[in-house]
């Protein structure tokens, strides 16, 4: 559950909830049917989306071994399942906890960063086609949270990074 909602429930014996706290709960409850619908779409289209990504990935990176590509695709399927559950729960922490360290280390150990960067780009494109903008607004924060755990982040735009 979203940490903000969880902490609101802990206030029961202290006081009735403030309007803004109720607002967070209302927002979540109202979004739940749409989250469920998005979850079902992802579940039903899991194979279609990932097969499309896999086919394009093979074309994009012809030099990579099937074994390496399959490993990355399998990991991406897992990431998608964690993200889908995280979206249902509205909890990025769930996604982060499940992927923390090990996914990044696995990618590093297998030197699969090139494949993974290409894969997640293709996955984003495939999701843009498969989901509506509203569904994407629920799902994308989870995918971004997941990627932050294992894909190298872009350098922040600072004076030092620009060499000024």
């Amino acid at each position, binding site marked *: 559950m979203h940490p903000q909602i969880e902490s609101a429930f802990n206030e029961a014996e202290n006081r009735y909830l403030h309007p803004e706290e109720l607002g967070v709960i209302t927002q979540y409850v109202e979004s739940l049917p749409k989250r469920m619908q998005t979850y079902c779409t992802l579940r039903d289209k899991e194979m279609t989306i990932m*097969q499309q990504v*896999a086919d394009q990935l093979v074309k994009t990176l012809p030099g990579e071994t099937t074994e390496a590509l399959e490993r990355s695709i399998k990991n991406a399927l897992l990431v998608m399942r*964690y993200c889908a559950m995280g979206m249902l729960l509205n909890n990025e922490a769930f996604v982060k906890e499940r992927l923390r360290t*090990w996914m990044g280390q696995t990618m590093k150990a297998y030197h699969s960063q090139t494949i993974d960067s290409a894969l997640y780009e293709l996955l984003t494109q495939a999701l843009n086609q498969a989901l509506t903008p509203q569904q994407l607004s629920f799902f994308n924060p989870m995918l971004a949270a997941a990627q932050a755990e294992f894909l190298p982040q872009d350098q922040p735009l600072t004076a030092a990074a620009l060499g000024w």
Partner: protein
Amino acid sequence: MISVADLLVNDRIPGSYFATDAYVRSDLEMGLLENRQGDRLIALPETLIQAIYSGLDKETGQASRLVLFNCGRWWGKNFYARFCAEVTDYYGIPLSNMAMVEFMQALQQCWITHGWGKVDLDQSYQHRGFLVIKGWNSVFARLALKHEQPVCYLEAGILAAFFSQLTGKDLHCIQTTCESMGADCNRFVLGLAKRLEPAETMVTNLAHDAIMQALCGEN
């Protein structure tokens, strides 16, 4: 052509079995800690660990090192059996068929989740018959009585037994650097007892690299 559907076994994709939030569960009503299989976990308070160290030191003096090492061996043997059973059950493949990367991932995460700190494998001396395990943030190093030599005998015993079971060879383990002495990490050298023997006396006055050179130079 890759068939994505063929990548799944029984529609499942194993993740990180030892992920902390998934692995440790608590039953508040019963006051119990359990792992995700429902097996009991015990929490060791710092006071107890400190008491074990000081009690052993008072009762057995220098022999406490051997006592701790042997306790570690016993613990490590059972730990290996449990690790094997749980990992085999979850990933659906025997430990011997697991890729080294995945095995180490599981072991590292298992170590973290049990609160023993971080571990990593240093394979620089593998071709000479020695395996080096590096550890960080060890509670056993932090709470042990300070000495002029490494103090993680319990962990050394655990690692000796664990890797002996894993490799099917009777391995010994000697700690060469220790966080309790201000080192950046704890280094444990694993190898055949006879080949590791000379290092026993070196740990008090030689650095890790010098010990490794001496050990490898002899062969």
